[in-house]
């Protein structure tokens, strides 16, 4: 099966550090929730820029539906209909002082008729749980609201794939909850999402698959498997999610992904009363 988007032996970087990524291969299948993990400066954002068509790799290829990405102006315009990236800092993306106007930028750029633009703006704000903000001033929004509006701006392009850089960073618990609900609505509406994050517990709970950026390369696999790999975690300067650390410490051969599963694991477990919980 051809992947929705694929990086094939990509080498990329910037003048000061030409090989931030050195031979990275990554497959994004339609419909997956992919968590991109890695320390600060490991190259997560560089990889996302390559995938988004904003940074041309020094070597290697990016393929969309099996077709190599055309790096011409026209090819990139086409690419951005399918792949949209949302940066970590919402202020780096919101250029209009009026929320609805800002969200309308992408669709207007596509040259769509005004009525369709209006419909897309409404719909994407609704998906992000931000419809009540449409007429507000960008500079009156809270940080969490600005993050959701910036995401709505990408969603209004109706991309197949959304690349989100740290969508929950800097949010308070309520903000994180709202963002997660929005992501669930987007997935339900058919979007494929790649999320770069530092939050290993969030990644484990949300994602199907993970890609860990480490030593300028990427390891891809099921999220619970990669995050249970102590060696990889250490090399990538990450941290094991507490649920996995707890299961491992108790000698349980399970991989609970969140609090509920951890509780279930422990209540399943405890009646047995055995100390060697490994016997499952």
């Amino acid at each position, binding site marked *: 099966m051809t992947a929705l988007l694929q990086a094939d032996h990509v080498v990329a970087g910037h003048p000061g550090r030409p090989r931030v990524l050195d031979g990275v291969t990554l497959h994004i299948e339609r419909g997956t929730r992919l968590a991109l993990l890695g320390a600060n400066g490991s190259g997560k954002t560089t990889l996302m820029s390559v995938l988004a068509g*904003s940074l041309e790799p020094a070597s290697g290829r990016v393929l969309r539906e099996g077709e190599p990405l055309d790096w011409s102006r026209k090819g990139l315009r086409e690419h*951005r209909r399918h792949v949209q990236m949302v940066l970590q800092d919402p202020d780096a993306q*919101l250029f209009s002082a009026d929320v609805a106007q800002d969200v309308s930028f992408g669709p207007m750029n596509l040259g769509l008729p005004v009525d369709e633009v209006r419909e897309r703006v409404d719909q994407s704000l609704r998906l992000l749980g931000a419809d009540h903000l449409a007429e507000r001033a960008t500079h009156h929004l809270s940080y969490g609201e600005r993050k959701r509006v910036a995401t709505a701006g990408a969603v209004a392009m109706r991309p197949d794939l959304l690349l989100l850089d740290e969508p929950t960073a800097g949010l308070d618990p309520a903000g994180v909850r709202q963002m997660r609900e929005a992501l669930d609505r987007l997935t339900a509406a058919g979007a494929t999402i790649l999320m770069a994050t530092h939050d290993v517990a969030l990644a484990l709970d949300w994602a199907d698959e993970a890609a860990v950026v480490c030593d300028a390369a990427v390891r891809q696999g099921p999220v619970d498997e990669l995050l249970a790999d102590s060696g990889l975690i250490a090399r990538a300067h990450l941290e094991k999610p507490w649920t996995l650390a707890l299961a491992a410490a108790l000698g349980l051969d399970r991989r609970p992904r969140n609090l509920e599963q951890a509780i279930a694991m422990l209540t399943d477990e405890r009646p047995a009363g055995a100390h060697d919980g490994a016997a499952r």
Partner: protein
Amino acid sequence: MNNHSHHINALDDAAWDSPWRRRRVGEKVLCSMGLVLTALLAPVWPGTVLVSVAAVAFILGSARIRLHVLAEAMSAPLVFLVLGGVSVLLAVGRTPTDAWWSLGALSIGPTSSVQALRLFLHGMSGTLSVMVLATTTPMVDLLTWLRRFHVPEPLLEIANLTYRLLFVILDTMLTVMEAQRCRLGDNPVGPMHGLRRRWDNTAAAIGAIGILAWERAGRLNEGMSHRGFETTLATLPVRRRASPRFIVITLAVIAAIWALSLGGTAS
């Protein structure tokens, strides 16, 4: 500076929250500029006073702007008008024969006091008329409205970006100033309240704000290219319903002011 930045926000906040936000910009411009021109062109008495009354009625009554917002906004121009008025009031040079009061080269007479009063009344009524627009119409709406006059698009985009960056950089500026205050940047130890260091610190603060602003602009540029920005920043025009009633009221008020002013001078 802190207070002043709140001052920046005060008029802007009022405009965004104004019940007139949904009115067509053209109608508000008609109202505001109609009053401004009346203030300038109609006979000073009672024209300017009537314009002031009408503007305040529109702002506080119809647009429901809070009194303290208007009062705060008017404080700066008021200082200018009082100062300007006083300097016009005091004539310098040979004392005119009809002077009421004189002291050396200074004198106050009917000519200078009429001039001073004219300056003050024109300024008050003119500024209040502009406030009709300023307190009800966010800058973005105004810039979007200007599109229909075929102002070249890049110029409006620059103005729009300036407005957006204003608040982003204002945030940065307040943080830099606060961080400096925390470490005694505004209040160093030294002769004359640490004058020498205060200068260095002010320059460092302004320089840091400039550099951070520059970086922010660079990042916004990058963010916009991610969003597919190539040449233009087209966005959706906002739909607003026309209100013939509002136009009629505006024209009626202005006509009434003219009638009263001209009638007043004729009689």
